[in-house]
């Protein structure tokens, strides 16, 4: 599986994403600068966590105006896999690549801790190596992860099996405990918790590995 990680100004989980990808695939990951207008030839594009543009104005809003976003939209349109983690999810939502928005946490505080998630769906490029209903623990680290969409959108997401991960103890007020969702074509995943921080047992677990293994199995 060939992959690329996008680097926006003040992305800060770009190296973490690359490390996890390289560890899991054994292959070098391309780091792509936000001002580039083309993507390298890759199977997976990762929009990493961090504070692109300081989260100023609205998280993800300014990153969505980057040049590279055009290429990412094209890649997604063609069915290419896109994974947005944390700030990456916020950018995907701003770009309309997944529905809804991520608002300020209901508790109004940044929250960093491991959280238990239920894997809701295994019918996807991203989750096939998990078992349905499985509990996994990923850390969250965000101030704005409170997922919001109108009722129709939420119903649709549920009806179409596009809610992929749900919080067991909601850390941020997210609608229907949603932690991660797919786009309609099921090739774009946005999620707030960090699977890339749980691929090495020394950092607190290996529950994130199956997500990368799912991608590798599907996209290689």
């Amino acid at each position, binding site marked *: 599986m060939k992959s690329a990680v996008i680097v926006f100004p003040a992305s800060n989980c770009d190296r973490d994403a690359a490390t996890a990808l390289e560890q899991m695939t054994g292959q070098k990951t391309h780091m792509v600068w936000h001002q580039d207008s083309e993507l390298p030839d890759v199977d997976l594009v990762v929009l990493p966590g961090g504070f692109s543009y300081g989260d100023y*104005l*609205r998280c993800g*809003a*300014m990153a969505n*105006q980057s040049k590279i976003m055009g290429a990412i939209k094209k890649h997604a349109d063609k069915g290419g896999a896109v994974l947005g983690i944390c700030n990456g999810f916020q950018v995907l939502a701003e770009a309309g690549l997944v529905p809804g*928005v991520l*608002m*300020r946490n209901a508790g*109004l505080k940044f929250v960093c801790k491991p959280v238990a998630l239920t894997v809701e769906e295994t019918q996807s490029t991203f989750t096939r190596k998990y078992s349905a209903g499985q509990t996994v623990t990923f850390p969250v680290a965000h101030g704005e992860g409170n997922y919001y969409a109108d009722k129709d959108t939420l119903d649709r997401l549920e009806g179409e099996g596009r809610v992929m991960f749900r919080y067991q103890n909601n850390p941020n*007020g997210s609608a229907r405990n949603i932690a991660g969702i797919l786009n309609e074509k099921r090739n774009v995943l946005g999620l707030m918790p960090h699977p890339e921080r749980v691929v090495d047992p020394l950092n607190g677990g290996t529950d994130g590995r199956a997500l990368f293994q799912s991608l590798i199995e599907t996209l290689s």
Partner: protein
Amino acid sequence: MKARVFVTLKNGVLDPQGKAIGHALNGLGFASVGDVRQGKVIDLELSETDAAKAKETVKAMCEKLLANTVIEKYEIELK
């Protein structure tokens, strides 16, 4: 020319921050406070001198960047 843009949450969208402010105000003894909503105000200096053109430009800025129209609405004031 100066423009002031208000970006506020649409009605019906929950505003955790506004709610917390209301709560805190009540807690401080400001009993008369009911609903509270918080939004952003963005003050722009523009080299444009034609009001109609300025308004149009600022509207484009709002649509493109300043507001997320999924949950937010905006108003523009020129001065």
